[in-house]
């Protein structure tokens, strides 16, 4: 076990020692601040106040707040940038080492391929955790520079209002449930990364599959089949922003995501195990 922890630490050294690992974090900071500045100095707050008034909340209440704007930022980034960086790191984990040649250096050591993959995947999970955590924390921090503390107001898919305490809980839930999405996309990239392909190809394949799933899910004729689309299940984080959280749906999606992740790992492991590692 000690050995495993040493090896995991080493994988984290490798992962967090690379500059490209931080692209995601830096872009989050840039995107969050850009979104906030635009929101603060545009007429969006007025439109939001109008929307609140139309729903019976007088004078905007105290809902144009850190939590509301933080949630908006996390939602926008969670839908767009987060999958990109998760796929990028997942696609890099094995394929980059194979491309660089360092995988040959590792595999002349008496470590099993399965163990090596588990170490790399765990490092990827820890990266996903850090990414989601920083997205959530920085979202609140930067929003606090421009907006006051208050309740949470969300729309679409459904209009919902929460007081500050409940709103903070929902914000934390949302951040926590972004983790299964990030890990699933990272694992999909990781699966492709285990095959004999370039890191960019692994990333693009993972993102393409997610996008295809998302497109199919949006087609009205396929609404009866949405349970079959992975993009439907990775978006469980949106469910925790509903007035009443559909826990059965969250549980169902989590179970299905667990199945997806195990499947991706098994396929990746088998592909990696049977392949020849050559220069």
């Amino acid at each position, binding site marked *: 076990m*000690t*050995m495993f922890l*040493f*090896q995991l630490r*080493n994988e984290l*050294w*490798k992962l967090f*020692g*690379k*500059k490209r690992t931080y692209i995601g974090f830096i872009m989050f900071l840039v995107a969050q601040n850009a979104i906030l500045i635009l929101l603060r100095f545009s007429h969006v707050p007025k439109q939001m106040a109008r929307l609140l008034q139309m729903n019976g909340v007088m004078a905007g209440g105290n809902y144009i707040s850190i939590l509301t704007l933080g949630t908006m930022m996390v939602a926008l980034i969670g839908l767009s940038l987060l999958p990109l960086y998760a796929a990028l790191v997942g696609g890099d984990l094995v394929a980059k080492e194979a491309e*660089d*040649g*360092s995988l*040959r*250096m*590792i*595999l*002349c*050591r*008496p*470590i*099993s391929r399965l163990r*090596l993959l588990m170490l790399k995947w765990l490092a990827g999970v820890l990266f996903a955790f850090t990414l989601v955590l920083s997205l959530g924390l920085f979202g609140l921090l930067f929003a606090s520079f421009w907006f006051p503390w208050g309740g949470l107001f969300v729309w679409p898919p459904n209009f919902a209002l929460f007081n500050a305490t409940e709103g903070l809980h929902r914000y934390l839930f949302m951040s926590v449930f972004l983790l299964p999405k990030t890990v699933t996309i990272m694992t999909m990239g990781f699966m492709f990364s285990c095959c004999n392909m370039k890191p960019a190809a692994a990333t693009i394949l993972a993102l393409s599959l997610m996008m295809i799933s998302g497109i199919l899910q949006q087609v009205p004729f396929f609404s009866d089949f949405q349970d079959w689309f992975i993009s439907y299940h990775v978006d469980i984080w949106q469910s925790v922003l509903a007035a009443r959280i559909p826990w059965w749906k969250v549980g169902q999606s989590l179970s299905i995501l667990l199945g997806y992740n195990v499947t991706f790992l098994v396929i990746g492991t088998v592909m990696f195990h*049977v392949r*020849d*590692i*050559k*220069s």
Partner: protein
Amino acid sequence: MISLHQARKVFGGRCAVEGLDLEVARGEIFGLLGHNGAGKSTAIGMMLGQVWPTSGAVRVGGYEVTTHRHQALRRVGAIFESPVFYDYLSGWANLEILSHYTAPTSQARLREVIDWVGLTGREKGKVRTYSHGMRARLALAQALLPQPELLILDEPSDGLDPEGIHEMRLTIIRLQRELGLTILLSSHLLNEVEQLCTRIAVLNRGRKVFEGTLAEAVRQKDWVRLRTSDFAAAAKVLAELGLITEHRDERLVAPAAGVGPDALVRALVAREFPIFEIAPEARTLENFYLELMKDKQP
């Protein structure tokens, strides 16, 4: 130490290694020769469990690599051509990372190996600042960390300058003498192999075309180099006299059994052939290798 029995590897429809039998005994420096694509790296890949053999058996240290990889590679170190490291980390961090894939390694052991390869003082610098020679030393250090009994060197001098090649050669000799390692050396540099190896195997298009000692490789029929005014006429005379059995290349004659160069000189001088040069023709490993490759061409 290494034993390959009828090892075969097919990539797609191409056979990279065909029916390879190879035995490397403990304590020897064994050379693996062959042109690009001859199957050397594939053979090494099979020994290290990186390439799965299509058929046949590959054993290292008495263990089948495909089924007992951990035991087989526990005391094995390897260096590949153009060694790759994590450039953004220090030499020390690289060694720590790589050594932990084998077993826990103490700081003292790391320091000892860094000192042995002459990198003391530079181990904390980022690898991206290292010269090619320093990377080669770092590669050697990572190979030595698991206290190996067997060292597999795949083109270790690749990309090094003449001084670096010389240094690497001395290091290999030192490794064998001081640490008693068994070394498998794959190289294009015939001169290097000639100076280092006790036994060699030559691969051509995935097949082994020679395995034996260096002495066996360079041993040949006792050809004598003869330079005279008319080689063809001189050779004809010597053949008629029964002093030579054959001649070739307009410069070499093979004396009959028991006939020395002195007898050839006497016979030619008696027939007024001027002799500009007569000397035994020594065969280098390069000659041997080139002849072998020429013979095996389709």
